[in-house]
């Protein structure tokens, strides 16, 4: 029984997809991720697709679902490492990934998230005028 591993990295969860997703695997991934976001209180999910050479509408739907589910639990989703050929194909296919941020790699993805997320401890410590302070 294989499942795609989910790593916890601080406030984020990292999923690295390295195999072809099929129905059961994809459903398990969605369920596992949602559960983990909920139990860990993660604020973001990073999906690393640098090893994925084909993204079709099925995969697109899974990513979209993950983004929507995570958003409901107050977590952002960032897809990282998209291969150029995949980007070109997705644009031609007309596939949109609504609610999904993208970044070149995991490092950039984390930088992006730092700017997006307001962490709970920040709100408590906020005395000054800055409204959306990012962790510097």
């Amino acid at each position: 029984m294989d499942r795609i591993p989910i790593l916890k990295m601080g406030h984020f969860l990292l999923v690295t997809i390295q195999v072809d997703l099929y129905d059961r695997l994809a459903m398990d991934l969605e369920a596992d991720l949602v559960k983990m976001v909920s139990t860990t209180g993660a604020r973001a999910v990073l999906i690393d697709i640098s090893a994925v050479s084909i993204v079709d509408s099925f995969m697109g739907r899974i990513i979209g679902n993950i983004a929507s589910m995570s958003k409901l639990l107050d977590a952002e989703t960032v897809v990282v490492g998209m291969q150029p050929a995949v980007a070109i194909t997705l644009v031609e296919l007309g596939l949109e990934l609504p609610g999904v941020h993208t970044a070149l790699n995991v490092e950039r993805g984390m930088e992006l998230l730092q700017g997006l997320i307001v962490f709970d401890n920040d709100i408590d410590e906020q005395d000054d005028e800055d409204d959306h302070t990012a962790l510097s």
Partner: protein
Amino acid sequence: MTNAFLREDLMSNEELRAQSEELVETLVNALNEENISDVESPDFDEVVEILSGISISRARQGFSPRETGAFVLSLKHALIEVLERELKSDLAKLYEETLKVNRLIDSFSITTFETFIKGREEVILRQTDEIAEISTPVIRVWDGILALPIIGTLDSSRTQIVMENLLQEIVDTGSSLAILDISGVPAVDSLVAQHLIKTVSATRLMGAECIISGIRPEIAQTIVHLGIDLSNIVTKASLAHALKFAFNTLRLEVRKKSGTVIDKN
């Protein structure tokens, strides 16, 4: 062979002689009673090969199709001359044999035209590829900023090349901003706009952002009149403005050096 079409600038007399000899020899060896009337006969494969070779190499050297054609047809004249000498006394036979030779060499000359055209087409294809290569450079103007001056019309095949080069460069350099300068694009219609939008979308999927610069006033008018919506893409009138915007976005500043202070740059 024919004097009128001797191109001494392109081919020396010795080369011409050698080429002619090879052709004649192969033809003579292949020719016999039966196949003279059979233009398709495999016996002539070697002759056709030599002819194709001659045609392609002449095309590359710059001979016109007429000149190459004349070369082959001159063989016909030479053969007919020989026939005239040999069959002077038997006019009916002379006519018959002349017809056969005529048909045979005519078909050979058609072969040479076909291969000539093929040779030219290969040159055109190669040049098209070269043009595509050099006309879509991706320039690293700064750390993390790429510039693409697009010169000429932007059709779907060029867009493919632009996208591939740009995205690969983004991966290679980790750039986050790409400036597409279209001041060299003569006309922007809905199709070209679509190509630009696709390029921007693909760049965004890679986690980078695009700025379109070089929008001339006429282009701005056309875009609005055509109802093309570029509202979610940053556009600037000039590359300079786009660069300034890019620096700003990356929180970089360009300052004038003051007189006596030694700057540690």
